[in-house]
């Protein structure tokens, strides 16, 4: 069974659903488009699944609010536009993308890992003085190509999973051995199809090889956030054969995080994840 080429894979990626309309509107508002908050809140509220999930997080202990929030409009006012936009994007990506069946691939673990990476990237934003929303989104989408590979080519992906388990190697290494490319290239192609900003596409493309990303880009931060999510076992409860990615020393040094900053990032990541995981339904 000959694996598809990258071009064939990307050709199939075009058949996957487009981003939900509400997510596109949120993205446009992130890009600085002049969108009325009331209108945005009304549009988000039309999706009951997304609204329910976002309100569950807004009412979680992480935000420690004194009274219960009952609407998206109130959530934007009380919790802030930035946080709510991130939550809406997460909820819409998670509910809008297709599911597939592939023995050995746990979609629940997949979503927990990408949400953990998004939260870790968001926690890194403050000490690194970078935009938290963009980092959250890049973290959320960094492995989206893997989901596409699994959905589009489940038989090939089963072979990849079996090889990774047998050789105790990283999944991306097994992907490269089997397909000749890995999920990061597919993630970038999907983000391009969804017209995401160039800095997010770059971060998705190079999160495993950050030295090749654009100078001063986000790939190095997503590279480290991915490591944090694995190291904190955010994808499950400490039983899986998960393993740490190799962290690029130059990238880690360039981030320049001291012991106190790193500890604060770990604590914030854990606390935020405990609240945000209710997004997973």
């Amino acid at each position, binding site marked *: 069974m000959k694996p598809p080429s990258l071009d064939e894979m990307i050709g199939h990626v075009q058949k996957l659903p487009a981003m939900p309309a509400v997510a596109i509107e949120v993205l446009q508002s992130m890009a600085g488009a002049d969108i009325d908050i009331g209108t945005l809140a009304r549009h988000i509220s039309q999706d009951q699944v997304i609204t329910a999930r976002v309100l569950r997080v807004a009412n979680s*202990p992480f935000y*420690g609010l*004194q*009274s*219960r929030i009952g609407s998206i409009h109130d959530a934007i006012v009380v919790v802030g536009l930035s946080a709510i936009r991130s939550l809406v994007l997460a909820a819409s990506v998670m509910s809008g993308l297709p599911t597939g069946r592939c023995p050995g691939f746990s979609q629940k673990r997949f979503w927990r890992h990408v949400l953990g990476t998004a939260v870790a990237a968001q926690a890194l934003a403050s000490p690194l003085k970078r935009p938290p929303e963009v980092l959250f989104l890049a973290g959320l989408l960094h492995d989206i190509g893997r989901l596409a590979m699994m959905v589009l080519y489940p038989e090939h992906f089963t072979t990849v999973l079996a090889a990774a388990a047998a050789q*105790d190697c990283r999944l991306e290494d097994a992907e490269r051995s089997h397909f000749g490319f890995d999920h990061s290239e597919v993630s970038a192609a999907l983000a391009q199809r969804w017209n995401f900003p160039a800095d997010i596409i770059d971060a998705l493309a190079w999160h495993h090889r950050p030295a090749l990303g654009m100078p001063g880009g986000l790939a190095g931060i997503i590279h*480290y956030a991915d*490591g*944090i999510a*694995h*190291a*904190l*076992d955010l994808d499950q409860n*400490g039983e899986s054969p*998960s*393993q*740490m*990615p*190799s*962290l*690029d*020393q130059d*990238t*880690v040094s360039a981030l320049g*995080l001291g*012991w106190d900053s*790193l*500890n604060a990032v*770990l*604590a*914030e990541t*854990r*606390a935020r994840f405990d609240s945000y995981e209710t997004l997973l339904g």
Partner: protein
Amino acid sequence: MSENLTQPLGETLPGAVLAAPVTDSTGAVLLPAGLSLTAAHLESLQRRGIDMLIVCPPEDPEALARQHVKIRERVMYLFRHTADEPGSQALLHAVLAFRQASGK
């Protein structure tokens, strides 16, 4: 089994686990029982004028030591191919300390 402790906020350290929810004057829950308190939680409670907390008693030292060993084994398993790499050192040590302190 040891009884829960009612103690001043100022004497509570990060890592303490709430034995009862923290509520405000209206009875609304600010933080749930079972939550492991962080420094940010403690600062937030101070700003809201909370002065007393009910926390779980400190764990049995032997149980704590067993938990630390289990967490160390898990973290070293995750870093089994990368523990010696220079880029991993800071995160390995920070994660080990954080997970042992938080019990997660």
